[in-house]
Structures are given as C-alpha cells and as structure tokens.
C-alpha cells in the first residue's frame, strides 16, 4: 500500500479524499494555488504545497508543478479527484513515465473514452445501445445543420471532451443552431482546451441513469447499482438519488450488465461511471463513461456501505477487488443535494463572497461533504461547488423527509446558495411522485422566486435583532462582546 498520496484537487472533494487516506493510514499532500491559501483542503492535509497563482493553468492543471510537488513530498501516487486533471490522459501518461501511480484508469482508456464520439464507436462495437448521433465531431455548420434535419430537432450539441454541462446546448430549431454552435465551441475550448463538438438526438422527458462500476487489474468488473441524476439545471446535476424510482430489479440487472460490458469493451480499470438515458418505455441508451470519481459518488457509498475512494486506492495499488458482484447488497435510499455558491433567484448566477456564518446539519443518516467554513471567502476562479448534503433512510419517502429537515437546518449566510430552491424541489409533488426527468427543472421551476411565506417572521426577526443589538450596546455603556457588522454602521436609531 502507498505511504503517501498527493491530491491534485481542491475544495470538498480534496477534503473527502484526505479522509479516506487518513483512515487507511496513508499520509496526504495537498497542493494549492494562491487563491486557496485559506482553503479547507490545505488545512486538513499532512503536508501542503503552494504550486502557483489562481489561474488553473498555473496550478491545478499544471503537469510540471504537480509532478514536482509529488517529487518534493515523496508521494507515490496522485489522486486527481473530479474535474481538473482527472480525465486527462496526457497527465495520466506523464505520471506513468515519472513512476508515479495515477489513481484512475490507464491513459489509453481515458483517451478512448474521453473522446465521446470515439466512445460511441467503441460501445456500438461492444453491443451497448447508443443514442442516435454523429460518430465524429464536425466544425462545419452546414454539415451539422443537414444532420440535425436528418435526425430531427430537438438536438443536443455536445463537446467531444469534458463534462459538467460545459460546451453543451439543446437546440430546438434551425434558427438557434449557429449561436448554440459558437457558444458550445468556445465554452468547450475554454473549459477543456478542445472546442470540437458533435450532435446527438435530444431525448425529451428521459431520465439520466448512471451505473457505478469498479474494475481491478485482474479482469474483475462489478457494478454498484444505479444513480438517478435527472434533476439538472443547465445540464448540471443538482439532486441525485439511488435507487431510481424507475429502475426495477430486472432493469437494474440489464443496465448493470450493459455497464459491465461497456467497461470490458474499454478494458476499464479502477472506479468509473457509465451514463445512460432511460426513456419512458424502459429503453436505455449509452451516453458516456466518466473515467473518474463522480461528484455524486457518496449516495452509492451510503446504500452499499463501500468507500469508493478506498477501493480506488486499493485498485491503484494493485490489489484485487474486495467484493464480488453477489456481495453487493444495496439497502435503503440515499439522496444528494449539491450546494453551490449561486443565486437560484437570479438564473443560478455564481454568488461568490465571504461565508459569514455556517451551520451544517447533522444527525442519523446525514452526511455533509464540505469544503467551507465560517469566515471562508469563496474564490471566483473555480467551479462554485461548496459542499454536498447526502441523506440516507430506509426508503425513498424517509430519505425525502430527511432531506427536507436537513436542508432546513443548513445555514449559510453571506452568499446565496440554492438551499431554498432545493427545498422546494424535494418538497414538490412531482419529485415525491418519482416522476422525474431531465427537463423537470426547466419545465416546472423556471419561474422560481425566493419564498415569501415566512416574510413576516423574517421582519420580526430583523426587528428583534436590531433591538438585541441596541440592548447589547446599552449594557453598561460598553461595546458588545461580539463584533457585528452593525458596529461599523455608525450612528443609527430605532
């Protein structure tokens, strides 16, 4: 087993990886940029190395600096987390050349699956059903337009590289194609350094169902059931759950086998996720393989009891899988809500700034994977994910009830977060019925506005807060023990 692992990432995922390493008795090395000097992952690691300025290319995406940090600290392996270098085959190859273990699939596998059109070809050859679409990218608007008419609008423009909804646009008619094409290209070029895009048929009212897989170096491949990630805004998942209300034991078996076939077709090793779209008739289509740990991996951990990061590390260290397929016995229901620094009342625009107050929910069946603390300033340079609230209960209604209570206790002041929005979604009759699909947020929550039902209570709280401050000021004529923003307001009266 490794003695020391470098985590080439930041935020909540770096914090989460450090936890598993610590439990395994492995020392951890954090790397960080100048924007992250006071970030939590830096504080939690055994060693921390400053590697560059806030631009990702100068720090978290910089091969030379990360390799140098691994050399300097004596780390034998690098865990890339998600995003950044996690799906970069050239970095995985560089690690191999340097004699450092990359905790993820082999470079050739990342490369073939990272090119989404190449992956489609690979899956077609492996008899895995795929969505109708192009099997090669195109830079020709005319060709795109022809193809779109052929398969019929609406179509989905997708970046050949990357994920996370970046470089992706739904196009509902010919007049929208050019603008969407340009936006998708430039967004993909900025995010992944590759602006190539292709077209797929856009399946409306489908569900996003993905299968977690684990594969070792000895040909053992198992699946750890599905995750449903249909609740999305801007093609980015915000609520995920497992099991899916739409997946029967028979369908789970079928999709699980398809995922294993997909993994075998690609000669997959380590943890990965095979994403499918599931239509209303129970037909499923391959979308892509994510060759990394997923943001939403904790819900699988909750229902299977398996620590996926631990399994990733063991596989990378050359150990065989600890489980056979028949050992996987999912139990209960888990839901994850992603907490971003964004304003749900203003088209989910990023809302960076200082977190003035934080109180995370806790209790039985509640897990918070967090990268923040009171007093932390959310940097603008990176993806605005702050934390993930994960709840677990015996069944779906129990998990929903727990999510409602936990969101109600999740206090973040100073910036805007989607907590009030998430609360409305999980409380909605549509979510509770399990009739979820990828357009649900766009169709049913597009006109969402901040709540008003407790506005009067908020007013009373505001007045009481001012009164309490006045009382604190008056007490013995001295300043209050605590410093509040009111101290700096100067003279005011009530």
């Amino acid at each position, binding site marked *: 087993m490794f003695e020391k692992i470098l985590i080439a990432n930041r935020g909540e995922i770096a914090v989460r990886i450090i936890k598993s390493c610590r439990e395994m008795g492995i020392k951890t090395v954090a790397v960080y940029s100048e924007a992250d000097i006071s970030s939590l992952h830096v504080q939690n690691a055994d060693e921390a190395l400053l590697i560059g300025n806030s631009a990702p290319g100068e720090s978290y995406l910089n091969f030379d600096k990360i390799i140098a940090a691994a050399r300097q600290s004596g780390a034998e392996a690098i865990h890339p987390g998600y995003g950044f270098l996690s799906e970069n085959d050239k970095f995985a190859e560089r690690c191999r050349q340097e004699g450092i273990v990359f905790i993820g699939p082999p470079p050739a596998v990342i490369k073939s699956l990272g090119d989404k059109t190449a992956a489609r070809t690979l899956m077609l050859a492996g008899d895995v059903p795929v969505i109708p679409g192009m099997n090669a990218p195109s830079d020709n608007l005319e060709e795109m337009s022809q193809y779109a008419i052929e398969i019929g609008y609406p179509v989905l423009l997708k970046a050949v590289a990357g994920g996370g909804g970046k470089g992706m646009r739904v196009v509902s008619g010919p007049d929208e194609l050019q603008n969407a094409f340009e936006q998708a290209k430039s967004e993909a070029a900025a995010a992944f350094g590759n602006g190539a895009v292709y077209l797929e048929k856009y399946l409306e009212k489908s569900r996003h169902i993905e299968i977690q897989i684990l594969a070792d170096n000895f040909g053992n491949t198992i699946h750890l059931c599905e995750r449903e990630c249909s609740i999305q805004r*801007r093609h980015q998942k915000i609520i995920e759950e497992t099991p899916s209300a739409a997946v029967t034991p028979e369908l789970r078996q079928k999709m699980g086998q398809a995922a294993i076939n997909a993994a075998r077709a690609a000669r997959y090793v380590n943890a990965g996720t095979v994403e499918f779209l599931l239509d209303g008739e129970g037909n499923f289509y391959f979308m892509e393989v994510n060759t990394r740990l997923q943001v939403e991996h904790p819900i699988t951990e909750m229902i299977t009891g398996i620590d996926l990061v631990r399994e990733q590390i063991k596989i990378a260290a050359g150990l065989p899988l600890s489980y056979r397929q028949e050992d996987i016995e999912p139990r209960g229901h888990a839901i994850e809500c992603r907490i971003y620094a964004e304003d749900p009342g203003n088209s989910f625009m990023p809302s960076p700034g200082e977190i003035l107050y934080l109180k995370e929910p806790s209790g039985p069946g509640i897990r918070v994977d967090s990268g923040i603390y009171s007093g932390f300033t959310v940097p603008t340079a990176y993806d605005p994910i702050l934390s993930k609230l994960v709840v677990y209960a015996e069944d779906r209604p129990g998990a929903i009830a727990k999510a409602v209570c936990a969101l109600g206790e999740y206090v973040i002041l100073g910036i805007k977060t989607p907590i009030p929005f998430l609360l409305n979604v999980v409380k909605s009759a549509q979510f509770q019925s399990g009739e979820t699909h990828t357009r649900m947020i766009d169709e049913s929550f597009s006109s969402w506005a901040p709540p008003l039902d407790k506005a009067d209570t908020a007013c009373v709280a505001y007045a*009481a807060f001012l009164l309490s401050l006045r009382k604190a000021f008056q007490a013995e004529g001295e300043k209050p023990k605590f410093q509040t923003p009111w101290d700096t307001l100067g003279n005011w009266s009530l």
Partner: protein
Amino acid sequence: MEYSLTVNGEQKKMAITSPPSAPSALEDKEAVIGEQIYKFRATVIDDHKLLLSINGSQVAAYLARVGKETQVFINGELYSILDLGEADKNPQRRGGPHDQLQKITPPMPAVVIRLLVALGDAVKKGQPLIVLSAMKMEATLYAPYAGTVKKINAAAGEQVMPGLILVEIEQALEE
C-alpha cells in the same frame, strides 16, 4: 417604532410596540404587519442566531448583514431584507431595487467573451447583446428594451466589474 422594509422584493410596513410593563427590551413585544399582530420575544444565542417565540411558537432565525441587505435564514428559506428607513437616513447609500433601471452590467466580475452587436445597430427587446464568462460559465446579457446601440464600453477578452455599463442603448420611442 415604524419599519419600512422590502423582503425578497416585497414591501412590508411593520410597527413594533412594547407594553409599558415589559421588564426588558426583549420581552413581550408586539409587531403589527398589515392585518397581522405578532406577539414575540427573542433570545440571542450568538451573534448570528436568534431564538424567536412568535405567538407561542419557537423558531430559530439566523441573520447576517451583507452589503445593504440583511439576510435572514428561517427553516431553509433565505429572506433578504432591505431597510428603506435606513436608506432615508443615509441618502448617499440610497439605492437598491428602485434605481436599478434595466442596465446592461455584469452581475459579478466577469470576462467578455463576445460582443453580438455593433455601434449603431438597432436592437429588439430581448435580443442577445454580449456574452460573458464568470466562474467558467457563460452568460448572455439581453436588451432590456428596443433601441439603438449608442455606445459599447467593453471589448472581447476584457475583465469587467458590476456597475460598468457594457452596452448603452438609446430607447426607441413607444411603438
């Protein structure tokens, strides 16, 4: 005491009174908001947490001052309160929703990706004008009304801040 507040964009007038017999500033006050009367008392837990008892029911409220507004968190819901009375006393800070004429300005620090209009162009209401990128996401700003582009204050690749008017549009006369 009279308060004039906006809460998540909605106007509220509130009057706070306390019975003369009240032993301390925090106990047994009354708040009147519209037709509703709330009897309340409050316990300060820490500098951001208040335990309220309103008409006999307990509720925890968490508060913080953020810029001109006060954020109040109650049971997963966030209320942004703007105290209009406070703005009256400090005319230089007067602002908020009132003077937010539909200006084309970035909602946060951003980088200009692409300009979609040129000087002198006639634009329709809702026409995309400029594409920005912030925190790796692209956002498009649209024309708030029909008119003619009379000035462009940003170029592709430029870093821009909230408050900077990126595209100035002379409003067309009502059709």
